[in-house]
């Protein structure tokens, strides 16, 4: 294979079995992923899971302990950072304090000897709505303004791959939404590959074509946002993206395309298609049954219609009901002792179920999912909520 010119490399970004070891600590563990050229890829995960470390290896600021990184055919694993067609928006901005905003944004263009740097810088400053502060020093800007400058400084170079390490973290909600739209627009217009690291699952889901959920140095699951939300593969993903009700059960039997599960509250039917590929459906296998709170319907026990033949239901008692305006959030303790959260849309105020009432919860089999019983049921639950 002819040695491709790294500085001009284009194509999909490949990380192949990347491991990064800091002494005894493994920050990134045998991670593989492919980011299609021109796509918006979000890397989502809790603090300390190795997101920044992964980006730094792609940028060339950290050498992987093992593995390969490619852009198209060009192997960039050990290429110098200044030879890669990759630019980074640093998590802490890393603006040059002795240069003004204009010089900061022009830095990359000047290093490559680009002729009409001024015009491109002016455009970039327009884009982030900071033309008026071009002559100021970074320390004279607010945190959010600095963050936008960091964004402009990277984007102005139009790299093959743009790495964004929580680029909107310091912005208030309004500006954040606005910049999200801007970013998405730039990305589709220019066709750059964006790798966007974020804590914010909403941001990841609204912006990205593909989301990878990362935890403790590995990728738990990767796919389009809807797929991740509807069919999580692990308890971590189920809990980290939105909320999930998870409760332990056992496989009782399989019949046709369905799996019958059993727990202290009775039996549930699940289509085999809704069972995580990590679970073998032999009778006796321990599993976790999952249902999103908004997919469960709640009804007073005496009002409840007889359960449909193929529906799942459990009976329990409402232990708390919080009216949230657009919806009501119930916490129901089942007779078997599980706690289940339900979000019910407020279609009719008179249907609110008060605390202490006996209720029947029901959901369609295709709305549930089945995970491995070895998963930690609380993995990925946000601790401060």
């Amino acid at each position, binding site marked *: 294979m002819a040695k491709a010119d790294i500085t001009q490399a284009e194509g999909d970004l490949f990380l192949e079995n990347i491991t990064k070891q800091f002494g005894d600590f493994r920050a990134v563990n045998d991670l593989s992923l492919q980011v299609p050229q021109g796509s918006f890829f979000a890397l989502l995960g809790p603090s300390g899971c190795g997101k920044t470390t992964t980006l730094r290896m792609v*940028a*060339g*600021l950290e050498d992987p302990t093992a593995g390969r990184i490619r852009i198209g055919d060009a192997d960039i694993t050990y290429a*110098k*950072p*200044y030879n890669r067609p*990759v*630019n*980074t928006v*640093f998590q*802490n901005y*890393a*603006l*040059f*304090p*002795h240069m*003004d905003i204009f010089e900061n944004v022009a*830095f*990359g263009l000047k*290093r*490559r000897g680009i002729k009409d740097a001024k015009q491109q810088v002016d455009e970039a400053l327009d884009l982030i709505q900071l033309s008026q502060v071009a*002559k100021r*020093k970074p320390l004279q800007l607010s945190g959010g303004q600095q963050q936008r400058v960091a964004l402009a*400084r*990277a984007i102005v*170079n139009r790299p093959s791959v743009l790495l964004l390490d929580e680029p909107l973290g310091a912005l208030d909600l309004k500006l954040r939404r606005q910049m999200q739209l801007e970013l998405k627009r730039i990305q589709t217009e220019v066709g750059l590959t964006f790798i966007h690291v974020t804590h914010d699952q909403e941001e990841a889901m609204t912006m990205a074509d593909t989301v990878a959920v990362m935890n403790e140095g590995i990728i738990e699951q990767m796919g389009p946002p809807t797929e991740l939300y509807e069919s999580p593969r692990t308890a971590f993903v189920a809990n980290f993206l939105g909320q999930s009700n998870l409760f332990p059960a056992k496989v009782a039997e399989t019949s046709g395309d369905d799996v019958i599960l059993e727990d202290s509250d009775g039996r549930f039917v699940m289509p085999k298609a809704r069972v995580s590929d990590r679970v073998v459906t032999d009778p006796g296998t321990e599993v976790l049954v999952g249902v999103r709170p908004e997919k469960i319907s709640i009804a007073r026990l005496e009002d409840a219609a007889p359960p449909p033949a193929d529906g799942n239901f459990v009976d329990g008692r409402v232990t708390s009901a919080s009216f949230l305006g657009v919806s009501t959030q119930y916490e129901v303790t089942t007779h078997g002792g599980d706690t289940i959260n339900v979000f019910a849309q407020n279609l009719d105020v008179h249907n609110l179920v008060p605390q202490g009432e006996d209720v029947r919860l029901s959901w369609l089999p295709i709305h549930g999912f089945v995970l491995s019983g070895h998963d930690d049921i609380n993995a990925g639950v946000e601790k401060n909520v």
Partner: protein
Amino acid sequence: MSQATAAPKAPLTHRLRTWVGDNALRIYAVIAFVYLLLPVAYTFAFSFNDAGRTNIVWNSFTWDNWLNPCGAPEVCPSVVNSLVVGLIVTVVSTILGTLIAFSLVRYRFRGRSTTNLLIFLPMATPEVVLGSSLLALFLNLFVPLGFTTVVLAHIMFCISFVVVTVKARLASLDPRLEQAAMDLYASEREAFRRITLPLVAPGIAAAGLLAFSLSFDDFIITNFNSGQFTTFPKFVYVSATRGIPPQANVIASAMFFIALAIVLISQFAGRRRKEV
């Protein structure tokens, strides 16, 4: 206005106490400054003394000393000696010290922490001890005392100060700035030249000034190792027995004002840089 006068006044003791409370810091500062600046003022005043043999009692005012600072024998040659030594020492110790500081901050190598500790040794050792042991060393190596030995001795103790000063500046420099530069297509060399060096430059400049003033000022170590070679402090000390000529006051005052000017200019430049 009439209302204000009509309002009952606080008792005198209370007002006195408030006044002292409000102005205590200012009073203290004035006293401290008088204490600090009195010797300088004295030196400056006596540079205008039309002294006879000694410059101890005030005779009468004259411009002569300032118009003719080389009037007294040996004053100017000793000043020139001090300046030459100071400049060489500044250049050499700033370069060497800066390099040491970079290696201590940027690289992990064996003996790094030991080096860090040893750097402090020349600063912690009493000057008489340093001076006398250097003298013993030079004598044992049969190095003739004079200009060379003074320069060597000064470089030796100035390096420590340069290292400490530059190191402090370097340590506060975020390594991610250089990484960001390299991410933006700057080679290692360019990142150093455009990011690191400009950001560390104030520290290096401060270290250089410090080295110069330490060298220019040094008497104890110089006196041990200079042989017949005379620097300005040594000249003053030697002539103290016979009477210090007022030209020495002129030189000292001039040095003070030059130093003051440098400080003011650098402060002014620093403020300008921040404003723009």
